[in-house]
């Protein structure tokens, strides 16, 4: 499996993954959007605003998934020094940050009509905001070094430290900081509600898979760009040094 850590070998594979991801993303997002916006029923409490959930929840899931995948890549980079893992962190972090931002913004748009406020300092919201800042830290560290390899390594360490810290942050926020919060808002939260009707679950899962494929396609595009960018960097250094 580590054979594909070689950028050249990876290239032979990435093209096919990219094509499959694009096709699957188009199919699933198209079908999912039809289900979510037209076919699925409005909620009896939230009426039409429930449709925001079909974007909000997949974005939230992806924001977590991408961070975990970055942590795995960080582990691979620090242990086996595979450069591709460093490229992956560099490629995935901005996409992860974008999904986290999408999750926060769509959540605010949903919260306004449902909760009557754009933002509450609820534990879940706060921990997603913290996740967003961890992403920003990784991006900033990636670009803060003159030597891009060092930026990747530093960023990998930050992601690793963050992945140890993220559960602590999450539980400290959820268990300890909610003491002072009105509990009525969290009980409204759509995920904790007992069960979800199949008419709504199906579009949600279809959308989630579509988002995952979309992420796969985007990350492979960015990864290819990173590899090309590094090649250009090396060629430039060669011409400078004669």
């Amino acid at each position, binding site marked *: 499996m580590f054979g594909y850590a070689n950028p050249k070998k990876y290239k032979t594979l990435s093209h096919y993954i990219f094509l499959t991801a694009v096709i699957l993303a188009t199919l699933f997002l198209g079908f999912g959007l039809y289900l979510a916006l037209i076919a699925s029923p409005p909620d009896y409490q939230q009426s039409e605003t429930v449709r925001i959930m079909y974007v909000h929840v997949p974005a939230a899931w992806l924001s977590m998934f991408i961070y975990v995948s970055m942590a795995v890549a960080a582990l691979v980079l620090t242990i086996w020094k595979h450069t591709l893992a460093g490229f992956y962190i560099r490629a995935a972090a901005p996409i992860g940050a974008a999904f986290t931002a999408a999750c926060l913004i769509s959540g605010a748009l949903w919260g306004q009509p449902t909760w009557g406020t754009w933002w509450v300092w609820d534990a879940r919201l706060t921990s997603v905001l*913290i996740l967003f*800042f*961890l992403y*920003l*830290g990784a991006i*900033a*560290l990636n670009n*803060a*070094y*003159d030597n891009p390899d*060092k930026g990747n*390594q*530093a960023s990998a*360490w*930050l992601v690793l*430290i*963050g992945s140890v*810290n993220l559960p*602590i*942050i999450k539980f*400290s*926020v959820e268990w*300890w*900081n909610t*003491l002072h919060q009105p509990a009525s808002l969290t009980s409204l939260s759509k995920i904790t509600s007992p069960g979800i009707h199949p008419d709504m679950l199906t579009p949600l899962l279809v959308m989630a898979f579509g988002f995952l494929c979309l992420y796969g396609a985007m990350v492979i595009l960015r990864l290819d760009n990173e590899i090309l960018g590094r090649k250009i960097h090396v060629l430039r250094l060669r011409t400078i040094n004669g």
Partner: protein
Amino acid sequence: MNHLNATMLKDLKTDFRHGGQFLFLPAFFLLIVMLYPLGLGANLKVLQTAAPGLLMIAALLASLLPLEKLYIDDMKDGTIDLLMLSPQPLSFYSTGKILAHWIIAGLPLVIMSPVMAMMMGLSINWPDVLLIFIPATLLFVLIGQIAAALSLGARRGSVLLALLVIPLYIPVLIFGAGALDLLQTENPTKGPMLFLWAGLAFTLPVTPLVTTKLLKMQMD
């Protein structure tokens, strides 16, 4: 062990002879605490309810200040390079750095903390305040060490450092403020305080190893 002592003494001496952060940081701590009644109004009831969080935030901000300069001088004058060539393990050096850092930037805040708690109207015994601020400042120092080593060779180090370190400080803030808060209720509980000590027990042995790794990475 000589290595550790030498590093610690060197850092302490440099700080004392430069007119020291060990005096400046408590002053900064006091300044921030002074801002609260000016910003929130001098109503002691309001201050009292917010005091646990506000005190921890003041300590957190004061802990941010010394991080940037932590390793820069040692890197620029070649100390770290020399140490990496020496047969001594680098973790002695970073442990010495941690101890000196806490004596300069943590201990003064700990000493100040009962006074600050009193000024904010908290009704907590001073030994308890110390028992909360000792692990809290130590955790600020340890996490700050990691972040400082992480952003050592980076451009725009100081802004970056704040961006990296503040999210990592959040659990310390929550447990510290929670500990102060729960100790002034009618049934004082020590749960959050014990969490702070538990966090310290985990972070203390790990930090020198992680900073050593990071320094080696930076020096490549």
